[in-house]
């Protein structure tokens, strides 16, 4: 593999500029991976890795990924919240990298909620 240089960043910048000129830069989906101590200890980082890999492979750019802290349901971690624009957020429980891949392909890309993994529908009350 060629050495990674600052030039690569410039290339990324140009590519992203060309891409965003084509669509108007709106995000369609927000995915939150819960990253409290409990989440991390039960595998949230692997879930995150899997999600980023899927986004990369699918070559989509309208998905925002973020993290959040613990919301008190430590025993059901890793938790992932999927919010599709104009739809109720869906919280998935006991996630792992395979389930994340399935949720990404079926729910995030195709809009079909993966009921067996769902913990709840709707927003949590903020801490």
């Amino acid at each position, binding site marked *: *593999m060629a*050495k*990674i240089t*600052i030039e*690569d*960043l*410039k290339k*990324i*910048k140009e*590519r*992203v*500029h060309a891409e965003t000129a084509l669509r108007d830069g709106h995000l369609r989906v927000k995915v939150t*991976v819960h*990253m*409290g*101590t409990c989440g*991390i*200890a039960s595998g949230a*980082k692997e879930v*995150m*890795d899997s999600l*980023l890999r899927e*986004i*990369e492979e699918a070559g989509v*750019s309208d998905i*925002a*990924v*973020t*993290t*959040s*802290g*613990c*919301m*008190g349901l*430590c025993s059901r971690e890793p938790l992932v919240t999927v919010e599709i624009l104009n739809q109720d957020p869906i919280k998935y429980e006991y996630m792992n990298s395979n389930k994340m891949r399935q949720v990404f392909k079926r729910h995030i890309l195709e809009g079909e909620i993966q009921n067996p993994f769902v913990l709840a529908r709707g927003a949590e009350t903020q*801490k």
Partner: protein
Amino acid sequence: MLELALHILDIAENSTRAGARHVDIRLNEDPDHDLLTLEITDDGAGMDKDTLAKALDPFYTTKKVRRVGLGLPMLAQAAEITGGELILTSEPGQGTQLKVTFGLRHIDRQPLGDAAGAMVTLIAGNPDIDFTYCHEHGDQIYILSTEEIKKEIEDVPINHIEVLKYIRSHIAEGMKEIGSEA
């Protein structure tokens, strides 16, 4: 938690919750003295004396949603079983400094694990915070600064998937170059 990278991810999350703008993560492998040092420094809200004294108590937490706070105690334990220690210093308004030492070649020392993945997760989740990752091995040094990357990519968000991919391979390559054995 069985990897130091996961501890880093977890502890740095505390800094982000304390409102830090800069989080500095430093690892130093010193093979000559059989020592591994991890330092995390932030410019967040800091803690007063009372809070600082309770921070390593597993049954103390500032959160309302649960009654335990295991992040720091677990890191302290991971250090102590290798003959190292965890030192936490902080003052209100002055940020927090964490220094953890490990026996580098101690059989119970947790492996560093996927440091690149931990940094990518931190950056993806906190695009507004500037992170520095600095890894020394003997006289070799690797540094990643999101501030510098942001200067190069201008209006492209740092949590764009292409940039995150770049960061991941940048760190992986850098660690190989300095011959990290952690």
